């Protein structure tokens, strides 16, 4: 399975968080929103300007900027078509 940054994952693809390379307090904050190793994340769509993008995890849709998503690493499981 490929490990890729969340920001590089294609719209429509999904994967499981492998690790998050961010300062501890940021990790902590993201963890309470569900961004934890083992969580399945789906790339839903981009905002009209391309960034931020909308991700779906735990049935919740969350907008995240490229600058944050590039530090979240994903094991890509499925590559689907754009929604």
């Amino acid at each position, binding site marked *: 399975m490929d490990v890729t940054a969340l920001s590089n994952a294609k719209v429509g693809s999904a994967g499981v968080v492998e690790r998050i390379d961010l300062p501890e307090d940021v990790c902590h*904050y993201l963890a309470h929103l569900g961004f*934890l190793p083992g*969580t399945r994340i789906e790339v839903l769509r981009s905002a009209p300007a391309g960034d*931020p993008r*909308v991700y779906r995890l735990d*049935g919740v*849709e969350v907008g995240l900027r490229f600058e944050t998503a590039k530090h979240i690493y994903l094991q890509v499981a499925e590559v689907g078509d754009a*929604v």
Partner: protein
Amino acid sequence: MSSCHAPVVDLTHNDAPVQIGPKPLRTVALVGPPNCGKSTLFNRMTGLRQKVANYPGVTVEHHSGRMKAIGRNDLTLIDLPGIYSLATYSEDARVAVEVLTGKMAGVPKPDCVLLVLDATHMNRQLMLAAPVFSIGLPTLVLLNMSDQLETRGGKIDTLALAHALGHPVALISAANGTGLDVIPEFLLRMGNRPDDGSRPVQLPVLQSAASCRSWATQVTARTKYEAPQAALWTRRLDSVLLHRIWGPLFFLAVVIGVFQVVFAAGQPLSDWLTELMTRGGQHVAMLLPDNWLRPLLLDGLWSGVQSVLVFLPQILLLFLFIGILEDSGYLARAALIADRVMRAIGLNGKAFIPLLSAYACAVPAIMATRTIENKRERIATIMIAPFMTCSARLPIYTLIIAAFIPNQKFLGGVIGLRALVMLSLYALGFSAAMLTAKLMNSSVMKASTAPFVLELPQYRWPTVQSLSLRLYDRGKLFLKKAGTIILACTFTVWVLSVLPIHAGQFSLLSSSVIGHLGHFIEPVIRPLGFNWKIGIGLLSSIVAREVIVGTLGTLYGVDPATHSVGLQAALRGDMTIGGAIALVVFFAFAMQCTSTLAVVRRETNSWKLPAIQFLYMSGFAYIAALVTNQVISRFF
């Protein structure tokens, strides 16, 4: 991983009540994550009988109310801030922990807890359950949005879940009001039953997210929870509303549409209200004896308060639209679309929401900046919010425009000159805000690392109940302000404008106390094209911008030369066009609002920021008005 077991172990002990004699039930706490429908439930149970205040020393708002709507007027329901966990790194969570453990000064310790969770995504919602249970209060778990769960094919076994959690569990829909009977039943049982377990429970403060999560996953797996399908309507709507082309177009249409309706529909309503109040005032005045009492009431009090009250329709309309946008879930999408633009000036999309509300009033806007986690961006948003053209600026804008700008139409009557001037005043405030944000962005303020994370709730129909509650809240606040601060100001201005009394006669305006004060400050404001009456207006409007209209109304009203003509005509005869435009330019920038300063002081917990803000904005306003007057005077 040890912390994850702490709450679970606790739960197993919860079923063994210790008999200590009944303790009357008084206070109930409502706990839940953000967007779980907690406020809707709170409104359903308390109706209009709720109080809003701030917890002492912190910026977190405190809603509480009697549970009258479910027939329990003897119980107080406390609505805790929406939180994801009890880890006390956020102010909201700290407040929640202090209230739940009875350590919050002035708030009684809750006797039991209603924990509201969104049934459509239990995995994440249950992460909050573990730390809440470990506090050891009797808890009823309410799985909200049962209607959503059902229509989208999710499954939940409440009995199995209740068994796994060791607390009663019920499926409800706060929006539809279904399943709510379980709450009075639970409360009744709690009241009759002896207190279960009053032994002190150690609160595990550091419950790691990872351990709570694995616990939550285990529980949902064990109870065979089936998450519902993604909300189809939300997906479909988002594919249009967040579309590359239609998204931004719709966004613009919404923003323009809101302002258009507020002014197009608000203006006739305001006019109608003015007429109504003027007639009412005249009728009452006829009944009064023709002595000092009549001018006191009519010129001193009524005319001042009236000039402010007429803005109620527009303010309520603006809040109605913001309420609809927020409750429907669109505001979060708007923030997502605006993020890219906001980033260019060093802010994020979440600043869009406070900045939009700032068009109604900076006070709720500054309170709304709490959703911005990044401290630097939050301060920057607080700094620029008062530049947005708030509704308190409308009275003086409308007055000056009506008095000085001819009612010309261009392009076959589609665009009016007056509307154009109004629009440019809005643009002026907006540009000042952008410039300030840019300045702050390149300044030495330390950048913090808090990321931009924006939760996109599902689209929902806004409920009439929640909207009317908002309007009721806002209307009450505005009327309170008009009835207290503004009343006191206009009254003071009137008294000072007739004192001292010589031989039983009121002073003439120019020899009154206020006349002397006005003449004293005149040299400072003369270069801006303002006379001493405008100066008094400026001084009085430091309290609140709309006060100036009331003050001018009083000042020109007591002046025999302008007593019989309307305020517009009086101003036309007493100001140059340069001075008039400089006056509205001054108002576009100046920080004349003690409520805003007070809320900035409270939100930032220091006097430094409000002081800087006051000096910066007033200086900005003075220079801009000076330039405006000097330039316009050259040409006209």
